[in-house]
Structure formats: C-alpha cells, structure tokens
C-alpha cells in the first residue's frame, strides 16, 4: 500500500494561545494526513487540550494559522471561515469525542435522536431513513437496537462514549478529534472502546487527533505522537520510535514512569 497523496489534510503553523498571562500553547506546528492518527500526550496543564481546541477551531489562537483541505479539494484558512461554514464543517466533515459525554451528547434526547440530529443537520428529512441509519450505527458501536429510544443519561459510561462515536461517524467525517476518550472508564470498558476506535480508523481511513495522558492508548491507536510540555511540542515522531527510543529528557521521564501491568 502506497502512502496517500502527499498533500496533507490539515496544516497548522505556529499556533499560540495565551490565557491572560498564562501560556496555553506556544508555536505548535502540525500536519495531519488522511488516515493518520496523531496522539498528543503530556501531563495535565501541558497544553494538549488547548492544542486540540485550537485545531478544532473551538478556540481562537493569538497567532498562527490552520489550513484544511475541504471535501472539494480546496485548502481553506480555517480562522477565515464564516461562522456558518465553520459549524457546517464541525458537524459534517469533522467529529469531536469528549471525555465528558455530557459535552458531546444531548442527555435529554434519545440515543436515536442524538445520532439522527446530525443527519438532519446535513439535510436528511425522511424519518424512516434517519431512524434506520441511526439503528445501523448504534449496532456498529455495539449498542442494542432496543436502546434506540432510551436517553443517554440511562447509559453506562462506556455506552455513552460509544454513542458519541456513533453520532460523529454517521456523517462519515474525515477527521475526528478525541479528548481523553477512554478517560475514567474501567479497563475492560476501555479495551472495548479502543477496539472500536481502532476498527473505525482502519475501516474508514479516518484521520484523528487523540489527546491522552495514557501512553498505552497512544501506542495502540496512533501512528504519530506529539509530546507536549509547558505548552510546547517538545518531541514528535513515529509513535513506537518516540516511545521506544525517546530523545528528550522529559519524554524519557514520561516513558520511564509507565506502570507495567
């Protein structure tokens, strides 16, 4: 298999974000290609969530730019998009899976409604077809069909995360952002979710940016890794190379601190 065409899906350059006097993220540049999974790792406060917020245009940078190749092939400057265009991108070509499912789901709306809503936003109108598509995606994330009318606040943590993924996948996004998607889940539940994400990435050629503090999750899911510290990307490269032959002092410390099961 030959690597896909050599123009990246997303090119971020010099992203910098301050919160008042505090540095969120400084001068981070990153390219993401189609089908490529990039893990952003580091401790809390290292700037990894700020970087994810900037990449997904939920935060505005103090400086820096992001160009994204739209479905029509044209590369656009994301921070120059109009609000309507940006929202359209977010609910069609992109996905966002939050650690806290309450940020990604409407807890008072049925599981089917949560998935169907995203289809309606891209113009689906036929109730039967929307319901059938929602059912098929619930099945693909291993949620029983008879839970389609139940609200996510009756779901377990693992099910909520899987529902978030179904909701995002239904519009066949090319790029999905994940913020600690397995955080706070039991290990067995986490394994099931990781397996699901791994399958979708392979089967649909998804590109993904995954923020995690768990290096095992990064190793399992990602092709490339970005190590953040104090708001800067201090080391980046092939995932197994960075984890097995870390170069920077901080990365060596991070890798040496992993608990072996």
């Amino acid at each position: 298999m030959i690597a896909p065409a050599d123009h990246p899906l997303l090119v971020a350059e010099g992203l910098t974000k301050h919160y008042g006097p505090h540095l969120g993220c400084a001068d981070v540049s990153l390219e993401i290609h189609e089908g490529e999974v990039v893990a952003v790792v580091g401790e809390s406060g290292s700037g990894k969530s700020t970087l994810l917020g900037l990449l997904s245009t939920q935060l505005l940078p103090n400086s820096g730019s992001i160009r994204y190749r739209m479905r029509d092939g044209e590369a656009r400057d994301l921070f120059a998009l109009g609000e309507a265009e940006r929202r359209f991108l977010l609910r069609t070509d992109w996905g966002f899976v939050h650690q806290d499912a309450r940020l990604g789901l409407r807890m008072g709306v049925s599981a089917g409604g949560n998935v169907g809503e995203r289809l309606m936003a891209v113009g689906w109108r036929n109730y039967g077809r929307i319901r059938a598509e929602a059912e098929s995606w619930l099945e693909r994330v291993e949620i029983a069909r008879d839970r389609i009318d139940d609200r996510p606040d009756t779901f377990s943590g693992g099910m909520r995360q899987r529902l978030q993924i179904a909701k995002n996948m239904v519009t066949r996004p090319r790029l999905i952002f994940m913020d600690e998607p397995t955080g706070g889940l039991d290990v067995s539940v986490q394994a099931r979710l990781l397996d699901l994400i791994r399958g979708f990435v392979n089967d649909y050629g998804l590109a993904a940016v995954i923020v995690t503090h768990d290096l095992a999750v990064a190793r399992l899911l990602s092709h490339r890794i970005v190590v953040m510290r104090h708001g800067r990307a201090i080391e980046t490269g092939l995932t197994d190379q960075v984890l097995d032959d870390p170069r920077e002092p901080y990365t060596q410390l991070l890798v040496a601190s992993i608990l072996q099961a």
Partner: protein
Amino acid sequence: MSANPVMIRLDAVAKTFVMHLRGGARLPVVAGVSFEVRGGECVVLGGPSGTGKSSILKMIYGNYRADGGRIDIHGPAGWVDIARAVPRSVLSLRKSTIGYVSQFLRVIPRVGALDVVAASARESGLDETAARTRAASLLDMLNVPERLWSLPPATFSGGEQQRINIARGFAAERPILLLDEPTASLDATNRAAVVGLIEARKRAGAAILGIFHDEDVRDRVADRVIDVAKFAPEAPGR
C-alpha cells in the same frame, strides 16, 4: 546469488543512547555499521549479547533512530533512507516491504489469535478468505492448539504468545524480514517449524536479516554471519 538485488544497505550507521535520567550519560552502541543484504539470502548478526545486534535491527525497522549514516531500503517505489524518512513513509515501508519478528508479542485487547495473524496477512494484500486460510495454516504449523485460535492471546503462555507472534510475522510475505531471536526458548519441534518458514521465505526471494542464539538454527539458515563486534564504537583502527 549476485543475481538477486540488494534490498538493505547500511552505510556508516551509528547509534548512541543519551540517558537523561542518568545525568545525560552517553552510551555508544555501534558505529560505522556498513553491510548489504540481498534478496534470497539470510544474513545473521553474530557476536556476544550487548554488542548492539538488536539495536541494528530496530534501526532498520525505524523503531530506533540512527544518529549517523544511511539505512537504504529497496521499497516498491525505489530506495528510501529510513534514517531520514518521514513517519508516513516508514509506516508505508513496514506495510509493503519490511517485516519484523521479535520474541515478544504486543497484544491487542479483545482480538483473537487467528484474527491477529490474519490481519497481518491482509496488510500484505491477501483477501479475507486467503488471509484466514494462511493464518490457520501457520498456527497449525507452529503447533498452536486450535481451541486457542478464537481467544485473545493476552492470557496465553509466553511460548504460545511467541508462536502467535512468529505466525503474524510470517503471515505477511514481505520482501525483507528482520528476525530478532524468534526461536529463543522454543522447543525442538517448533524451532524446526521456524527454520522451515525461514527457508521458504528465502526460496521466495526475501532478504532475511536475523539474530539467532541457537547454533543449530543459525547453522541451518545462515548464508553469512556478520560479526557485530567490529562495529563496536571503541573498536581499534577507527
């Protein structure tokens, strides 16, 4: 032999670990590593342990960085210097060209043994049915009991995991195969099975570079042995 193309070419490759957790101690591993491996031959890296044999294999696979020199790999689109290649092209070469088998299996949660092996066969281009057939025949050849095939290998014994890993490494028929002690701690029957697999890949024209501590395995598969001691960083004459 000389009719077969060179598949791996190392030129003045060097590796030094810098241990920042130990006050920045420098640990030179190898220097001036230069050799070639052609298709259809099995070259064995020899020498005592701790001389950097594994590190050389890992640099060729792109798992360790090389600090100096070139590691040229004959890929489907021409030569690629893996010491300078971007991550995407390293990954693409691993899919198309370079296989790597160690004695340790990194298990993937929830994926059954047969699926682990079949997935590797599919990566190299076999369809689903052919991949599963090949996976099953490899597991059979390596004496993995059929009752284990559908189970995730996480709970298997060390020896069983090792054989799953070998099956996975041989499932994809890539033109370059790196073997890091694949037969360590296997019994005689399974060692013989691995020797058979290596010989088959050689006949199919694969370039094989390996580390084997069992002398009987080494004597049976090796066309040449390279003594890694000559690449010691402090070796005289450099």
